[in-house]
């Protein structure tokens, strides 16, 4: 696996995640093979590839959600801001690195409680502060105007797109540095999708975003960097414009041009 090292060195960007020789095994199957890459601060990095290529698994490595699976074995190094995440406390890591899932999964509580869940779990009890956090998070997620007069209503009454933005707001409430998104728009209709995409573009200013997508157009629309995975290998990692205009690898070219999916 070769990455154009000269290319990356040119970047003066700040590195958030540094991944070195990452291997991941599910019981006897290797799901990720020797991944090396960097993720840069305040940029959107898109992970693309055919389904089953390991992109979601890779994403779940970054906030150690794979720990929950007993059969999963990980070797190699993932550094978060210079610190090996293996030595980090998962609770601390996950407050810094938030995650949005493929299916909108709000808790069956009120909209307010959904967003206050994270801060409350960290021991924040002050009502005024909680109110402030809820309102700001909803505004950041561009949902506030739609729900401002029904914050106490059940979150399950929202539409799919609203639910997904609620999940993003819930994640923002903790003030993370980095947000992982696992195909956040795959369960949404086109209008909701475009809203979420707009949101991602806005959030880029304050957050580092890593987004898994099966939709190449989406990757070109929202991301600054693109990583292309296939069968557990990282085939190519580059700036999005360059990746799509001048792919270095033949496999990338084939994928972009739709030779296989």
């Amino acid at each position, binding site marked *: 696996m070769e990455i154009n090292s000269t290319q990356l060195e040119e970047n003066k960007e700040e590195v958030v995640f540094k991944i070195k020789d990452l291997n991941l095994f599910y019981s006897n199957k290797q799901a990720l093979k020797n991944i090396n890459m960097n993720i840069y601060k305040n940029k959107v990095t898109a992970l693309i590839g055919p389904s089953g290529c390991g992109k979601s698994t890779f994403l779940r490595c970054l906030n150690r959600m794979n720990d929950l699976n007993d059969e999963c074995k990980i070797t190699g190094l993932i550094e978060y801001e210079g610190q090996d995440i293996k030595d980090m*406390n*998962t*609770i*601390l890591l996950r*407050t*810094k690195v938030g995650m949005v899932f493929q299916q909108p999964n709000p808790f069956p509580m009120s909209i307010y409680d959904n967003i206050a869940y*994270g*801060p409350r779990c*960290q*021991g*924040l009890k002050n009502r005024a*502060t909680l109110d*402030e*956090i809820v309102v*700001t998070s909803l*505004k*950041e997620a561009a949902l506030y105007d739609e729900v401002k007069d029904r914050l106490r209503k059940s979150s399950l009454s929202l539409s799919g797109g609203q639910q997904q933005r609620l999940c993003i707001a819930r994640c923002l409430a*903790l*003030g993370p540095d980095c947000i992982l998104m696992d195909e956040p728009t795959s369960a949404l209709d086109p209008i909701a999708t475009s809203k979420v995409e707009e949101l991602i573009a806005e959030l880029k*200013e*304050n957050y580092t975003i890593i987004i898994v997508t099966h939709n190449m157009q989406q990757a070109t629309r929202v991301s600054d960097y693109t990583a292309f995975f296939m069968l557990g290998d990282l085939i190519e990692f580059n700036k999005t414009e360059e990746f799509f205009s001048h792919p270095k690898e033949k496999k990338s070219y084939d994928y972009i041009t739709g030779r296989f999916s």
Partner: protein
Amino acid sequence: MQSDIIKQARIEIQRKSALNAEKKKRKDKIVRLFFFFITCICSLIIVIVAGFIIIKGLTPFFKIYTENGHTGSMSFSYFFTGLQFNHGYDQETGTFMYGVGFLVVNTLYINLISYIISIPTSILTSLFIARIAPKPLKKIISTGVDLLASIPSVIFGMFGLGVIVPLVRSIGRAMGLAGTSGISLLAGAIILALMSMPTMISVMVTSLNAIDESQIKASLALGASKTQTNFKIALKNAKSGIFAGIILGIGRALGEATAVTMVTGSPIYGITANPFDPTVTLTTQMLLAIGEATPNSLNYDARFSAGLVLLVIIILINFLLNNIKDIVCSIDRKPSKAIIFLKQLFTNFRNPCYDLKKLK
């Protein structure tokens, strides 16, 4: 976009998170350990119950009891061969004679009769509910089965005494048995059948509902009638579920005490084959005159021996039926090692030259 308050609050959250993360991890571990501990306690109940039954059930054979001016322990041979639960003291051997073996025979006999009633009824009823009945009838009968399952055993016993016993009496009188009171083995078997049927039916219906619909369609496409399909393909496909239902029902029937005690009477001794005679089984003997037995007396402890025998029977029958189920249901699958071994054993038995041939 972010106001100062929010920045402050978020920094505060992150700070708290960093501060408390380790503590939370420790707490997680403690909570997990606590739940594990409780689970262990819950699962230890089986060990406690089995342990007490085994120890208390074996004690009478070894401990020396003093009762009615006699001293001794329980007779081992009479325990298996005796025809009375409490036959008093045997001067010759210096042991108390408590018989349980005949109770086993009675228990198995009454259960056998109840299975003759319950198993065919359950199979046909569940087939009816799952495949034959029109929708409204299906709902009525399955609700009825659910209700029957929720009726406590003591109410079954009362019903038996009030309805089944007079019924059996009149049948007996009609058959020329003038002396029968209706309190009988047959009444007990009928009650047992009624009580174990709901369990059997609900398991069987579940498995009949779960069978592969394509098999049914294939059978219909081959020209079999709907009824033939139901009886041949559906029943065959749900075989393992039907067996599971039978095993569960038998388990319930074997352990049933109150209802049977109320309708089978309390004869003191003997094995009876006549369905119109009163009978005494393991469970009824354990319940009979319990008020008169003081704890730690031999009369009380002998009931533990009966309980031990009951548990052994339940486990044996379960084991046996599960093996039969495996054999019957594994026609397509590879037979297990035990079955291969058994088959070889039988071939060897029939053909002594088998090994020799193999050697040559």
